[in-house]
Each structure stands twice: as C-alpha cells, then as structure tokens.
C-alpha cells in the first residue's frame, strides 16, 4: 500500500519513514527518548543530592567525619548530575528531518543538470572559507584541479576552462558545519594542523560532539583511510544513502564529508571520496579518500562573470 507525501505529494511506500522525493518524514515521528533521559537524570540528581544532604547532616550531628565527608561527596555528585547535565542534543530523527530536505534538493540539482562526476573537495587553506566541493560536468585536466580561488567566490555555477563542458558547480560540503564545530573545539583552524595530528584532532572533536569515537586515520601514498565508530547521525547517514544516492556517491554523507574536507585542508590536496562502508549494527564507518596534490591549478571564473 502506498500513500502520498504531505509536503510534495510524491508517492511513498507504506514502510518508508521518509519521502524519497523531498526527504520529509512520513507520519508522526516516534517520540524521542531524549526528554525521558533528561527526566531520569534530574530524578537521579535530586535523589543523590537529597541523600547526600541527609547523610552529611547525620554525620555532622553525630560527629562522624567520614560520614559527613561521604554525605558531602554524594551531595557534590548530585550537584554535578544536575548542574553538569549533558547539554540537550537534537534528537537524531529531528536532525535527519531538518537536514535531509536540503540534501535532497542538491540531489535533484545534480540529477537534472546531469552532473555525474565525483565531487572534488577543494583545499580552502587558512582563508577561513567553509569547505567546498566542486562537481565538474565533464572530467578534463582543468576540471580535475579547480582553482582554490573558487571556494572563496561563493558562486554556485563556475567555469574552469574555455571548452563548453569545462564547468561545474561549487557546493558547501555537507560536513562543513561538523568540521567548523571540530575547529571551534580544538581552538585552531584545521589547516594549521599537521597531518600526523589530524587523527587526534578529529577523534577528540568527533567524540566531544558525540559524532563518533575511536577514529583511526591512515595514509598510504595518495590514499587516506579513515575508520570510526559512529555515536550519532546513524539515521541521517543511512537515509542519505537511500534518499540521495547520487549526492552520496559523488560527495558523501555529512560525516564522510567532514573528514574529506579536513584531509583536503591539511594535506593541501584535492580529495575525492572513493569508497565508503557503513556497518549499521556495529556502527562502524570506513571511508577511503583519494588525494591529488595541488599543482598547477586550473582556472576558474563564475558563470555570472562571463
């Protein structure tokens, strides 16, 4: 049995959770477990705090110092449970439903403009420009090595050569925001990081953002392999693969994209996502990136400037 999407009217299979045309969630989203978790944390905090206060008072009036100290320890633990409670995180499915429509729009754009080549992550360097991906219409020497200047222009359609097919589109990397959060946490621009330190920076950043843990980054010649265990965004990563397969194969999902953009910036190389694997039950992700050193960069002018 199939229904229609309340947003775009496209046909949806009964077992689909998201519309394959616009990415909108189908029906009511299951209630998030986050509020329940927050509620139980408050309950645990209040209980520990009250118990601690009771034991501390008992210890004080009975004159038993270890009992007083035990009460104070429990009291402090209660304060920390309540006061240092984890900041509210956006429920995974809400993050998916907010992000997916934008990715589906890019998917449609790629499909209708016949962009089929792999996206090339442009090394933005230390310019403070958010990471960009260049998707060429045709693959030529010039489109393989687009000018880094393209990332700074802020234009969508760009021309890199004189031949008719030597043009492409420059889009924001889907993982740009993840990477900027990692940069904010590490306190330094990724471009200033040495390659040997990149694995540690991404591992710490991803863990702090609750994106992933146990990140391992290995480089063999012009291939970089990154593996990690996802802590969140599983929903989004799996949906991108089904709802926006073209965008996923050309540019990657948000996590792969953040990693590719970071590697591009640190190595000053053009990066393509050559392979990506996601083991849903084990939450393991493996991304294989191809590097192409920046040499004699191609040209680059925006269509609007022609």
């Amino acid at each position: 049995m199939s229904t229609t999407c309340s947003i775009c009217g496209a046909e949806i299979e009964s077992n689909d959770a998201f519309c394959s045309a616009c990415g909108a969630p189908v029906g009511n989203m299951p209630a998030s477990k986050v509020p329940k978790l927050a509620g139980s944390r408050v309950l645990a905090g209040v209980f520990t705090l009250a118990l601690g206060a009771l034991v501390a008072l008992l210890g004080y009036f009975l004159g038993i110092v270890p009992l007083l100290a035990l009460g104070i320890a429990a009291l402090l633990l209660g304060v920390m449970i309540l006061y240092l409670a984890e900041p509210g995180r956006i429920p995974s499915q809400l993050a998916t439903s907010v992000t997916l429509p934008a990715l589906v729009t890019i998917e449609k754009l790629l499909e209708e403009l016949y962009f089929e080549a792999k996206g090339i992550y442009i090394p933005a360097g230390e310019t403070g420009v958010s990471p960009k991906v260049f998707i060429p219409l045709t693959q030529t020497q010039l489109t393989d090595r687009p000018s880094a200047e393209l990332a700074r222009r802020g234009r969508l359609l760009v021309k890199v050569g004189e031949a008719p097919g030597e043009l492409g589109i420059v889009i924001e990397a889907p993982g740009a925001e993840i990477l900027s959060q990692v940069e904010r946490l590490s306190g330094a621009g990724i471009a200033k990081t040495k390659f040997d330190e990149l694995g540690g920076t991404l591992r710490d950043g991803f863990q702090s953002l609750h994106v992933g843990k146990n990140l391992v980054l290995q480089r063999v010649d012009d291939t970089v392999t990154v593996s990690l265990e996802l802590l969140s965004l599983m929903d989004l990563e799996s949906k991108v693969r089904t709802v926006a397969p073209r965008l996923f194969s050309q540019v990657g999902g948000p996590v792969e994209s953040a990693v590719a953009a970071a590697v591009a910036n640190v190595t000053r190389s053009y990066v393509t996502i050559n392979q990506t694997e996601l083991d849903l039950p084990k939450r393991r992700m493996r991304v294989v990136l191809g590097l192409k050193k920046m040499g004699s960069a191609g040209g680059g002018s925006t269509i609007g400037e022609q």
Partner: protein
Amino acid sequence: MVDGALMFATVVVLSIFGLETIDVYLGLFALELFVTSEITAPLDSTEYRKRMVVGIVMIVIFIGAILKRIMILFRVTS
C-alpha cells in the same frame, strides 16, 4: 562520573586510615574535580566553565574550613 567514583574512593580510603579532619576531605574533593576536568578534556567550553564554577565553590569552602582551623589555633595559643 569519574569525579564521583574518586570522591567515594577517597572517603573509603581516608576513613580506613582513620582521618577525622573534614578540610582534608574537602581539599581532596576539589583537587580531584580539577584533575578529572583536565584529564577528561576536551570538553566543550560550557561544560568546562561549569566544572570550573563547581571547583571554585569547593575551593572557597575548603579555604573557609582552613580559616576556621586557623582561628581555632589562634584561640588556643592566645
């Protein structure tokens, strides 16, 4: 909750040694909080700031306990 486990372990160990001075417990609790904040870094800036506030409050309490002890000592000697 590394801090909590450390604090309870401190109480158990110090009580086994028969320590009867609360300021030592308080001082160690504050120290443990600062040390665990550093070793569990990187934390996001909000959490780090909150931990520092708790740590500073604990140090103030610890200083209060020390001052009280000094006052007692002065009273005894004078």
